[in-house]
C-alpha cells in the first residue's frame, strides 16, 4: 500500500474526506454569517443556535409526522427561517445605527435562551437521527472507503454555496443587496423596501445555518449544545477569511476543514486548536484576513 509522509493512503484520504465534510459545515455557516454581516452589520452569535434548531426541527418533524429526509431538508430550515425573520423584525431591527457590538450581545442573549430552553426540554444527551436509506451505504474506491452520506453532504453543500454566490454576484436581487450594503439611503430613495430586504437576508442566513444543521443531524448527534461548539470555530474561520467576500468565506471554510482533517492524521492532539492557531498566525501577518478588504 502506498504511503505519503509515512501515513497509509487510505487513512490520509479518509481523514481528508472527513475534513472536507467538516469544511462543508464551516463553509455554509460562515457564508451565512458573512451575508448577514454584509447587510445588517451584525455578527450573528445565534448562528449556532439556529443550526441546532434546524437539526431539532428535522428530528421532531421526523418523529411526529414521519416525513422523509428530502422534505425535512427543506421544511426544517424554512421553519427556522420564519423564526429568524420574527427575531429580526421584533428585536434586531431596533438596533440599526448602533454599534455592531450591541447586535453581537443581543444575538448572544438569544442563543443563551434558545439553547437553555432546548436543554430544559431535551436534556444534554444527544438524539439519534438516521440518514435516508438511499445514502446509507459506502463504496470502495480502491484507495479508500467512501461513505455515501458524507459525499452527498460535501456535494450538496458545494452546490448550495455556489448557488448562493451566483445569486448575490450575478442576479438583479443580488445587485440590489450589494447596493444596499454600499449605500443604504440611496437604495431606499430608489423606492426599494430595504427593511424587507434586511429581514429576508437574516432569514436566508438562518436558512443556511438550519440547512447545515439538518445535514449534520444524521452524523453528529442532535444535541442542544451542538451549535455552541461549532459557532466559535466558525467565528475563527470568519476572522481568518475576512467577511468582505462571499467566495472567500466559502473557500476558507472548506480549506480549514481540510487542514483540520490533515492535522488529525499528523498530530491528533492539536486537531481541536489548529483553526485557532491558524487564526493567530493570519492575524499576525495579515490583520485584515485572507480575503478581507477593510480592517
Amino acid at each position, binding site marked *: 500500500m502506498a504511503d505519503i509522509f509515512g501515513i497509509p493512503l487510505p487513512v490520509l484520504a479518509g481523514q481528508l474526506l472527513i475534513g472536507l465534510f467538516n469544511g462543508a459545515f464551516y463553509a455554509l455557516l460562515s457564508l451565512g454569517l458573512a451575508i448577514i454581516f454584509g447587510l445588517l452589520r451584525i*455578527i450573528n452569535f445565534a448562528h449556532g443556535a439556529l443550526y441546532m434548531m434546524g437539526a431539532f426541527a428535522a428530528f421532531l418533524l421526523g418523529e411526529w409526522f414521519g416525513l422523509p429526509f428530502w422534505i425535512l431538508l427543506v421544511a426544517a430550515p424554512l421553519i427556522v427561517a420564519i423564526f429568524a425573520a420574527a427575531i429580526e423584525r421584533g*428585536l434586531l431591527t*431596533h*438596533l440599526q*445605527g*448602533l*454599534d*455592531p*457590538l*450591541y447586535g*453581537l*450581545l*443581543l444575538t*448572544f*442573549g*438569544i*442563543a*443563551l*435562551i*434558545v*439553547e*437553555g*430552553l432546548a*436543554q*430544559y426540554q431535551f436534556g444534554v444527551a444527544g438524539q439519534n437521527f438516521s440518514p435516508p436509506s438511499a445514502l446509507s451505504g459506502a463504496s470502495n474506491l480502491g484507495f479508500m472507503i467512501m461513505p455515501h452520506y458524507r459525499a452527498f453532504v460535501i456535494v450538496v453543500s458545494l452546490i448550495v454555496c455556489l448557488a448562493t454566490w451566483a445569486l448575490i454576484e450575478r442576479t438583479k436581487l443580488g445587485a440590489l443587496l450589494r447596493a444596499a450594503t454600499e449605500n443604504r439611503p440611496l437604495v431606499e430613495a430608489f423606492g426599494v423596501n430595504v427593511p424587507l430586504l434586511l429581514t429576508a437576508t437574516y432569514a436566508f442566513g438562518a436558512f443556511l445555518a438550519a440547512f447545515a444543521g439538518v445535514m449534520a443531524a444524521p452524523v453528529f448527534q442532535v444535541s442542544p449544545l451542538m451549535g*455552541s461548539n461549532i459557532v*466559535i*470555530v466558525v*467565528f*475563527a474561520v*470568519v*476572522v481568518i477569511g475576512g467577511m468582505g467576500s462571499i467566495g472567500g468565506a466559502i473557500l476558507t471554510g472548506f480549506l480549514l476543514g481540510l487542514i483540520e482533517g490533515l492535522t488529525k492524521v499528523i498530530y491528533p*492532539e492539536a486537531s*481541536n*486548536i489548529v*483553526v*485557532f*492557531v491558524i*487564526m*493567530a498566525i493570519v*492575524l*499576525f501577518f495579515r*490583520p485584515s484576513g485572507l480575503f478581507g478588504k477593510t*480592517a
Partner: protein
Amino acid sequence: MSVSDTSTDFAAKERAGLPRKGIAVVAAILAALIVAPFMAYPVFVMKLLCFALFASAFNMLLGYTGLLSFGHATFFGGAAYATAHAVKVWDFEPLTGILFGTLCAAGLGLAMGVVAIRRQGIYFAMTTLALAQMVYFLFLRAGFTNAEDGIQNVPRGRLLGLIDLSDPMAMYALVCGVFLVGMAVIWRIVHSPFGQVLRAIRENEPRAVSLGYRVNRYKLAAFVMSATLTGLAGATKALVFQIATLTDVDWHMSGEVILMTLLGGVGTMLGPVVGAGLIVAIQNVFATTGFPLSVILGIIFVLCIMLFRKGIIGTLHDQWRRYGRK
C-alpha cells in the same frame, strides 16, 4: 466599527477627583463590607466580591477603552488554575499563591493581547473568543488541571504562615482586602492621565493616533492590566471555593461578566459591582429551582440591550443629572 458613534452609548462621563459624593459612596461600601458577613453567608459575600472585582476589571477595558473582550474567562480561570496548583501541589503560602496566579493571568493577557489588538471592534470580540476557546482546549488537555474533575480540595493555608484561613472570617477579611486594593488600583488607573488617553481612544481612535499617541501600545497596556486584575479576582476565587474547574475558563463565564457589566452600567465605577451582585444573587435563587439559568441570563441580556443600554447605574446617573438641573 466607527468609534465616534459609541461615545453616547458607552460613555458615562465622570468627574475626576473624589468629591463629597465619592467619599459618601466609599464610606457606604466600607460599612456594607463590615455588616455583610453578619447578614448573609460569608461565602456568598466573598463570591460576590470576587465577581465584582472581575466585572470591574473587565469594565476597565470595555467601559474606558471601548474594547469588548469575549475571552476574559481565560484570565479568570487561568489564574484560578495557577493559584490552585501552586497552593496545593507546590505548598505556596496563600498570598504568594494569589500573586502567582495573578502574574500568570498577566502573562496570558500579554500573549492574547498581542494578537487580538491587531483587529478592532467586532473582530476584536471574535478573536478574543476564539483565542479563549483555544486556551480552554489547552487546559482540558494539560495534565495538571485534571480535565473534567478540576483541581479540588485546594487548601486555604495560613496567611503569611500565621493566620489560619480556614476560619471564614479570616478568609473574608483577606477577600475584602483584595477587593479594596483591586478597586483602588482600577480607580487610580481610570482617573490617571493614562486613563484619559484610554478614553480618548474610545471616543475617537483616529484622532488619538493623529495626536501622536501610540494607540496600540495603550490598548495592549490596558488589556494586560485588565487581565491582571481579572486574574487577581480568579486567584482569590480559587481559594474561597477551594476549587478550580473548566467552568471558570468556559466561554459562558466570559459572557456572564459582560452581562454583569452591561446590567450595572458600562463605563461607571459602581455599575459592575452592582451588576455582579445582582447576577450572583439571581444565580443563587435559580440554582435551587430546576429552571435553566442560561435562559434567565439570556432574557436579562435581551432586556438590557433593548431597553436600558446604559445599565442601572448609568440610568440613575442620567436621572440624577436631570433632577439636579431642575
